[in-house]
């Protein structure tokens, strides 16, 4: 493995090296074949370490594609990508992902699913188990730890996937609509919980969401993407005080930003 | 008439005389359109004849005793070919097996339940060997010659007519043979037909036997020619091997003072006795049940 672990790299490199840096990246599926889909880009993007970036954009515009590229699961068709100053050429153990299709292993219990990163990364078992139970409790899945995932509701599966992504306390969180299947109350609770964890531990996060309020409530920046092929139409700084909480959404500045974003989304004709 | 004739096992040099009869048109002259089919062992050939899959066949008299006594298969001998026991034990010459007595303490390989093995006690007693001092192992027929040649076993069971092929494999080493015919007198293979065919179609049976015996006489008179004819029909058979086997068939078939093919009731009775003494026979078999007289003219 040529690439160093980003956590270590972060100490060696100038502090300013972005967690994720994307330059001129495009993605074309089935390149050269008939029916090829130009999904993304060109995109330029830089995510500072410790920042929280929200992404909103129309369905099919390439958000998940971008996230998979950032995770090192796919290679861009063109352009360069760095992670903590090093070329991004594969996944890193310091990344926690919630996939849009919350993937759970049907042969394992909910707890075993949540424990997967500890298993794979070889984390101390007792600690990890304690953390898993803590996360399950937090997400209201305590009573289902030893159930099989098939017995969970859609939203419960999503919460289990969320627990799994957080288990190893990764440096970088890549979240693809992690609360999409949750009711408003649970959603708010969990997103504030995420915000708290992120701030407390100083992690970096990239959140894809369709909920504009959520994007603002959590983000330092909100990226607004154009329809396919997805480009960054706007990059809006969220200058709201931290820590954020239920009250934040009531602030006039919040409403201002929300209105600005809604404008951008609902009147896509206006160029940025 | 169409006639399916089934051999006892495969197509071998020992079957050359059937091809002689076929090649020289002896069957055709009798109005028979003969197809020679390959058998899977005497027990199988007997059943094939009984079921009508084959009209006539070539099978071991001992197997026929068992087939009648155990399974009640309605088949009889109509002519005998191996008028003397064809079974033998072979060892490599130049080793420490020189006489039957030397087999004591040795291991002999043979196919499962071959008559070589089952009748060995009878032979052993006749030549003064203790059969209990000989051990037997089982191997596939295809592997037997090689086992002897490679020294995996000290001796193998084989029909005397198998010697040429065996010799080819063990060459340059030569063989010692202990033929049961040197000590015992019972029947080996003969031509068989069902009770029904014998009753309903005796002329066909007679004609077949007649033509076969004619081919046999020709073959015995000129084994080399018989070998060549056989190889013409069965390319895989070496003419020299077929020639050698034909000579050995003659050794078994020709009994001084008896017409070729003729069945001797006394030998039939002796055959039944030997089988009953050495194998598991469920019901007694009478000599009349085993052969039909009058087909060898």
């Amino acid at each position, binding site marked *: 493995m040529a690439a160093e672990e980003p956590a270590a790299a972060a100490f060696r490199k100038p502090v300013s090296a972005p967690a994720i840096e994307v330059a001129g990246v495009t993605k074309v599926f089935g390149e050269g074949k008939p029916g090829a889909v130009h999904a993304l880009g060109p995109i330029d993007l830089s995510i500072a370490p410790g920042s929280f970036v929200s992404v909103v954009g129309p369905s099919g515009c390439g958000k998940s594609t971008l996230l*998979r590229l950032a*995770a*090192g*699961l796919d290679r861009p068709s063109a352009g360069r990508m760095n992670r903590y100053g090093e070329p991004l050429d*594969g*996944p*890193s*153990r310091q*990344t926690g*992902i919630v*996939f849009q*299709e919350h*993937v759970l*292993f*049907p*042969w*394992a219990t909910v707890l075993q699913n949540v424990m*997967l*990163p500890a*298993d*794979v*990364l070889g984390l101390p078992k007792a600690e990890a188990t304690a953390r898993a139970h803590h996360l399950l409790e937090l997400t209201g899945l305590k009573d289902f730890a030893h159930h*099989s995932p*098939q017995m969970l509701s859609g939203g419960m599966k999503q919460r289990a996937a969320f627990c799994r992504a957080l288990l190893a306390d990764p440096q970088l969180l890549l979240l693809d609509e992690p609360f999409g299947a949750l009711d408003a109350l649970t959603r708010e609770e969990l997103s504030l919980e995420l915000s708290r964890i992120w701030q407390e531990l100083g992690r970096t996060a990239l959140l894809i969401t369709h909920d504009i309020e959520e994007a603002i409530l959590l983000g330092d920046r909100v990226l607004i993407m154009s329809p396919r092929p997805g480009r960054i139409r706007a990059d809006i700084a969220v200058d709201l005080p931290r820590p954020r909480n239920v009250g934040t959404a009531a602030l006039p500045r919040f409403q201002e930003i929300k209105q600005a974003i809604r404008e951008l989304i609902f009147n896509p004709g206006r160029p940025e | 008439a169409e006639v399916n004739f089934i051999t006892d096992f495969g197509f071998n040099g020992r079957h050359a005389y059937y091809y002689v009869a076929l090649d020289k048109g002896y069957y055709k002259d009798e109005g028979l359109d003969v197809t020679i089919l390959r058998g899977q*062992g005497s*027990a*199988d050939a*007997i*059943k094939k004849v*009984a*079921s009508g899959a084959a009209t006539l066949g070539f099978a071991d008299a001992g*197997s026929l005793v*068992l*087939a009648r*006594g*155990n*399974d*009640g*298969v*309605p088949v009889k001998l109509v002519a005998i070919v191996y008028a003397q026991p064809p079974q033998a034990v072979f060892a490599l010459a130049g080793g420490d097996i020189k006489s039957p007595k030397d087999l004591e303490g040795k291991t002999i390989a043979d196919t*499962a*339940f*071959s008559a070589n093995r089952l009748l060995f006690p009878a032979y052993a007693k006749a030549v003064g060997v203790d059969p209990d001092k000989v051990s037997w*192992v*089982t*191997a*596939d*027929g*295809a*592997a037997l010659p*090689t*086992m002897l040649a*490679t020294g*995996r076993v000290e001796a193998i069971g084989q029909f005397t007519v198998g010697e040429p092929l065996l010799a080819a494999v063990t060459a340059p080493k030569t063989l010692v043979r202990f033929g049961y015919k040197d000590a015992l007198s019972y029947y080996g293979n003969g031509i068989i037909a069902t009770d029904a065919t014998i009753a309903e179609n005796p002329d066909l049976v007679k004609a077949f036997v007649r033509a076969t015996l004619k081919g046999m006489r020709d073959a015995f008179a000129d084994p080399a020619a018989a070998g060549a004819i056989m190889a013409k029909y069965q390319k895989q058979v070496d003419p020299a091997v077929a020639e050698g086997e034909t000579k050995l068939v003659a050794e078994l078939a020709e009994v001084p003072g008896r017409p070729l093919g003729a069945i001797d009731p006394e030998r039939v009775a002796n055959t039944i006795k030997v089988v009953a003494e050495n*194998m*598991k026979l*469920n019901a007694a078999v009478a000599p009349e049940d085993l052969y039909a007289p009058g087909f060898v003219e």
Partner: protein
Amino acid sequence: MTIAAVARPGTALRRLLTPLSYVAIVLVWEAAVRAFEVPAWLLPAPSAIAGAASDWLPELATNTLVTLRETVFGFLVALAASLPLAILIAFSEPARRLLYPILLGLQSIPKVALAPLITLWLGFSEWPKIVIVVLVCFFPILVNVVAGFESVPKTMLDLMHSLKASETMIFRRLRIPAAMPHFFTGCKVAITFAVIGAVIGEFVAAQSGLGYLILMSTSQSQTPLAFAAIALLTIMSIVLFYGIELLERRIVRWSH
């Protein structure tokens, strides 16, 4: 679980259907043999077979044990051999290209033709028979397990890759559980062939076992005994098959 399990008649009756179907076949067979007076050497009546079986009970019992041991042992060896090979083949493209054709070649060689040679090479022991069982039954396991390893959904692979899981870890945590249903399908097919392999082995190189007994009874025209031995082999095979199915139901619970 079958599809029709939704519409279920009385459970007791359903349980009995299998044994009843066997009983029915035996009865029809007996009746047909009697009605058409089929001779014993062509197709013996079940009663005649049962008679032979009771006459030969001790021999049948000991020989059944011999064949059972060869079958199970050979099957286990095949299992032990084909699982690492399947892993290697699924794991590495060069291994797949090198090994798969060779194993396929091995499977393709008609074992009935090879059996005498194997005896020649391995001598008089249990081994020729076990090697034949292994050669006859490793392939269904191998092919099914390879297919199972490759049946893993891409989304699950992505999950493991995102954790930078080693191939070993992906095997342990993902491919192996995902392949379990295929594995059992392979085992169920293989075990029936293992029994057949044992018989082939015994035909060619044995002093005991049910295959040997069949050969003996055929060559001595004891047809009902041959059928008794065949029936025992069939029963052995069925019992082993359902044994594996039982194991499968205990282990693979998630696919329902």
